[in-house]
């Protein structure tokens, strides 16, 4: 199941994209990383992820805004989104409500894996 799962990571920092890709790839997930909103939207036209990790503070864009747009678009509203924030683990209620979940940077590896598995499986098991 993991092999078919496709996890996307949108973060403007290469080192974060890199470590997340390494950890998740080692677990057998197929991982795509994007540095910005444009790359994400371009690729969303062609393919759709099983789970999307979205950084809250992207250069030139606000991750919360992107999440809001995707969630209000019927084409993408069912893609699980996990908002990532380096700004402490204390996101406010509204910020939490936009996405399916949150992940604080620096994260615990176990946390990353648990959350990924929860949403990827949840998504894959969802009756189509």
């Amino acid at each position: 199941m993991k092999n078919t799962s496709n996890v996307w990571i949108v973060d403007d920092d290469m080192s974060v994209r890199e470590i997340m890709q390494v950890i998740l790839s080692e677990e057998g997930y197929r991982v795509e990383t994007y540095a910005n909103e444009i790359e994400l939207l371009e690729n969303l036209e062609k393919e759709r992820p099983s789970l999307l990790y979205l950084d809250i503070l992207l250069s030139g864009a606000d991750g919360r805004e992107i999440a809001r747009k995707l969630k209000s678009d019927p084409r993408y509203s069912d893609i699980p989104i996990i908002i990532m924030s380096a700004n402490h683990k204390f996101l406010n209620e509204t910020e939490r409500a936009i996405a399916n979940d949150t992940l604080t940077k620096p994260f615990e590896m176990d946390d990353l894996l648990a959350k990924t598995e929860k949403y990827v499986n949840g998504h894959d098991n969802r009756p189509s």
Partner: protein
Amino acid sequence: MQTVRKLQNSLFSGLSISVVGGIFFLIFGSLIPVPRDTLYLLYTVTVIVSGARGGLVPGMLATLLLSISVARLAGIPLAVMFFIIEAGISLLMERMHESGELVHNVVTGITDPLIVFDRSWKCMYVNREAEKLFNKDRKMIMNRNIREVLPDVTHNPMYSKILHAVEDGRHIHYTYYSKTMETWLEANLYPSDFGLTILFMDISQKVLLEKKLRESEMGFKSLIDSNIIGVAIEDSSGQVHYANDVYLKMIGYSRRDLEKKLVNWKKLTPEEDLKRDEQVHKILLRKGSIKPYEKDYVQKNGSRITVLKGAVLLDRQKKTSAVFALDISQRSLREKRKDEFISIASHELKTPITSIKGFAQLLMRNAGLKNEEKSISYLNRMLNQINRLTYLVNDILDIRRIEDNRLVLSKDFIDINQLVEDAVKEAHLSAPSRIITWKPSPSAMVFADYNRVYQALLNILTNAIKYSPATEEINVTVMDDGEKTIVAVADKGPGVPKEKQVEIFNKFFRVEGKENASMPGLGIGLFITSEIIKKHGGAIWVESPTGARSNAKKEKERFGSTFYFSLPKINKN
């Protein structure tokens, strides 16, 4: 004045003497014939002597002589004439007495120094106050020349003017500084036919006050005129009556706007601050002044400016006050940039930490799979330090949040027992050799932000580990009194001296003393902890047995300390 008094008494005493004198004269005059002209001369001389020197006898003599001469001339019986003259003179004497008494009262009633000179410039009267002022005895003043008595006056450049004024009979008034007395004096000169009366007033106090007032006015004026600080005068209704150029420039209004009464501090205050500023104004009316505080002004064009404003009440009745405003926009912009820098820097630090932590965890997992114990141990230490670094960065970010009042709680019903267990476990991970015991409470459900309370407790636990000997236990107890849940963390460290037990929760408070000189930390952990607890409506405090000293050196001197925090059971605010 004595003369006048004596003459007054002559009405009746003079009567008996006159009767006796009249009889004597009748006998004596008939025996020795006296020429009429001689009688007139005698009369005139006696009257002059009586007027000039006063006295009972000359007065009686004058009466008698006048009676005889008129009686002889007019052919009226002497006794009748004597009584007519005596009555006339008595009446005159009474009048003289009245005016003399009045003059006496007026002169003695003057409490200012008074000195009177005759036309030959000799002193003919000096009152006690003048004696005191010139520090000279009456004897040294009376009958002395004005040059001798008042050298300061006669050496004054105005002296010639004084002389002319006296000649012309004009009143003059002038102020001078007496070098001999080191005093500022005001002299009022009243010339009259008989000489010169001078009334002095010591105005040193007044001059000093005026000087001070002038200086302070000058200071105030230069403050207003300087281009440093904005000054305005306003009233309770909000009307700004006066403003200097700096103030007008600050608020973006013109002098014309001010004259048209378009400037009103209530309009200058942002809507959200109006309530606060009205409170501040009430304090100003009550206390008479307000300490400078930061506030924003809305300029005429709508843009904002940050100022430091202070005010003093000028008129309690009219409720007018002087306002001082200093433009601190640049400073507050710098502060803002500095704050932003700290936030961004802390945020940026987290990115490399995320990467390092991720790779360290990967390595840890691989080492675990291969049972490489040494690597596991090293990696564990590495991860502990990475976590420590993360907490430090988070603390810096939290300080910013607290200062900006942005500490937002995400409350839920949480089990404090569970929270304590989790926090103790994490604390134990960073110090595996330490014994940390914990005792739950049968009921410990509170409405709180789990992450924040967890952070608070972990801070206290980290301090307990840091400040107590590695061999000593740390005990955590959860208590519940029905209204609140209390968590206590007891250690066997050096304790917190009584005088530091409040201060310890202040921002940037650092433990001082030889023993703890090497203790690391930013001095913000307990401040954040305290802010988190207070934000929950709870309380935080520390207890140390009496005698605890922060620099206790010997083991037996260690008393330990217990940190407590309480959280209200139900508080959905």
